[in-house]
């Protein structure tokens, strides 16, 4: 039997899925143990028990000065920035994707511009963003929007162009206007694509969020990580990293569930 046709059974598949996780955890524990045996106060790789204690403290105990549980405040602030940023990006991606995909005049005018725009590294033009949008919430949200919108527009406009020409022609023969074709033919077909594209751009969105928070902020997940880095509090950093990973995973899970629930016809590829 060829290798490409051999499939693992359910128990083996589960086992294989767990192996890399176990390997990483074991590697961490071995490394942490080695360093701690040399220097019990080592901060670089704290013992898993230390991380658990720190996590318990961060999730439940308030700050000494203000009494607020900072982790929840950080999370709320960061998720709000991420939500608004990704929301604006998704909406403009959808609108411009439809326009560029359907209207040849708009395509002629904007497709090239968007393609070039998507190559601009957003982090390199940060000082300009600061001057234009200030140092507050706006510049952080704008960084996320600028970072992922060009990708969304390019992806969605291509999806619209990929819609079989026959469907458009058929709708035309039934008397549909451009607006009706956009709303009834193209829009439903690219909605699941939009969700998929948003899922793919969540990684970069987190990256831009954390970068923005690292530069000028007084609250947020990225802010906290860069702040405690100043005294190498890896137990705090690792707790935040695990928490961000979990949040990102859950957001991804929800989007996938939403996509399957709303657009079951779009297939298993989502």
């Amino acid at each position: 039997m060829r290798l490409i046709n051999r499939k693992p059974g359910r128990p083996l598949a589960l086992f294989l899925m767990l192996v890399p996780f176990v390997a990483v955890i074991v590697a961490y524990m071995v490394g942490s143990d080695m360093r701690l045996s040399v220097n019990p106060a080592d901060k670089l790789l704290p013992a898993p028990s230390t991380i658990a204690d720190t996590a318990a403290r961060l999730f439940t105990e308030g700050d000494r000065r203000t009494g607020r549980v900072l982790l929840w405040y950080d999370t709320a602030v960061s998720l709000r920035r991420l939500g608004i940023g990704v929301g604006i990006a998704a909406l403009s991606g959808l609108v411009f994707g439809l326009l560029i995909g359907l209207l040849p005049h708009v395509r002629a005018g904007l497709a090239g511009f968007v393609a070039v725009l998507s190559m601009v590294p957003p982090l390199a033009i940060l000082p300009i963003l600061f001057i234009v949008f200030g140092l507050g919430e706006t510049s952080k949200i704008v960084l996320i929007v600028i970072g992922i919108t060009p990708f969304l527009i390019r992806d969605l406009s291509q999806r619209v162009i990929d819609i079989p020409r026959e469907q458009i022609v058929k709708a035309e023969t039934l008397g549909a206007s451009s607006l009706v074709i956009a709303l009834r033919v193209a829009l439903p077909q690219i909605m699941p694509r939009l969700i998929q594209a948003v899922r793919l751009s969540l990684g970069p969105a987190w990256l831009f969020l954390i970068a923005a928070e690292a530069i000028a902020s007084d609250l947020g997940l990225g802010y906290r990580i860069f702040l405690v880095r100043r005294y190498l509090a890896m137990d705090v950093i690792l707790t935040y990293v695990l928490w961000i990973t979990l949040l990102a995973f859950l957001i991804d899970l929800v989007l996938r569930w939403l996509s399957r629930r709303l657009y079951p016809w779009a297939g298993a590829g989502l």
Partner: protein
Amino acid sequence: MLKSVILTAGVAAATALSALPAIAQEKTEFRVAWSIYVGWMPWGYLEDSGIMDKWAEKYGIDVEIVQINDYIESINQYTAGAFDGVSATNMDTLSIPAGGGVDTTALIVGDYSNGNDAVILKGEGGLADLAGKPVHLVELSVSHYLLARGLDSVGLSEADLDGVINTSDADMIAAYATDDVQAVVTWNPLVSSILEEPGANKVYDSADIPGEIIDIMWVNTEVLAANPDFGKALTGAWYEVMGLMAAGDEAALTAMAEASGTDLAGYKAQLESTEMFYDPADAVAFTSSDALKETMVNVAAFLFDKGILGEGAPSPDFVGVAYPDGSITGDPANVKLRYDTTYMQMAADGAL
């Protein structure tokens, strides 16, 4: 199968973590990290000019001086064990390596900031006018310490401000140009750039607290104890360059100026707000003074107040600091930071 996976992972971990904390043993190869700052530019010149190699050869060892672009990262790397020495301030060394259990010794006390760190207000006013305003700075850095000392001197505290906003030093100048920013605390060369802007008003600087922000070459205590030649080579090379700088050697100063991204005039201006210890005897006298003890107690109190000494720290006295006269501030059972004038004294005596 699981066993072999664990074994492989273990081996991988062991290889990945070859940068284990330095263990005391005799060796001949040493690595020292430094980052760009007016008082540390000689380290780059030492390496490039071959003076370091000359001194290392004299003692039969090999010293590599590595420039790290990110100051905090260089300290973190040292703390993790990737380097035998690092250039850092007294405050950051107390919080990161010493607070992290890495026993660290001050080998060369190079200079203290005498105006290089400053509180800058946009527009007219004084330090007391900061009340109710947001202040942009690199949180938990010496800037933060300077602000705390300044506010203390006019009877204010951080609670009287409209918060401090952590702002990356790399973006400080761009940040200052925005309307949101009313006050910043930062260091040179950023201070001189910002003061060129119209309306920038310096209300407090490190010349008001002379000798409290100290720039030092730190080395791992155990490595130094096992390898005195390492300390001798570094100290010897350093004071050779100090001699050149004190004599106003244009070639050396120009090389340092260019490496720090400015010109000779700009570098000299920065040196003016830096109290360099060109003469090792001055460094020895400064390190032996009682004022240093008071400074370290102040710094420890600041770090504890901000929670920087870590959760395991029950009080500001958590980390012990030893001084040349044998006295100790903080916990005598947990001495992790040592001021030692042995090698600087050797340089002063011409015994290197």
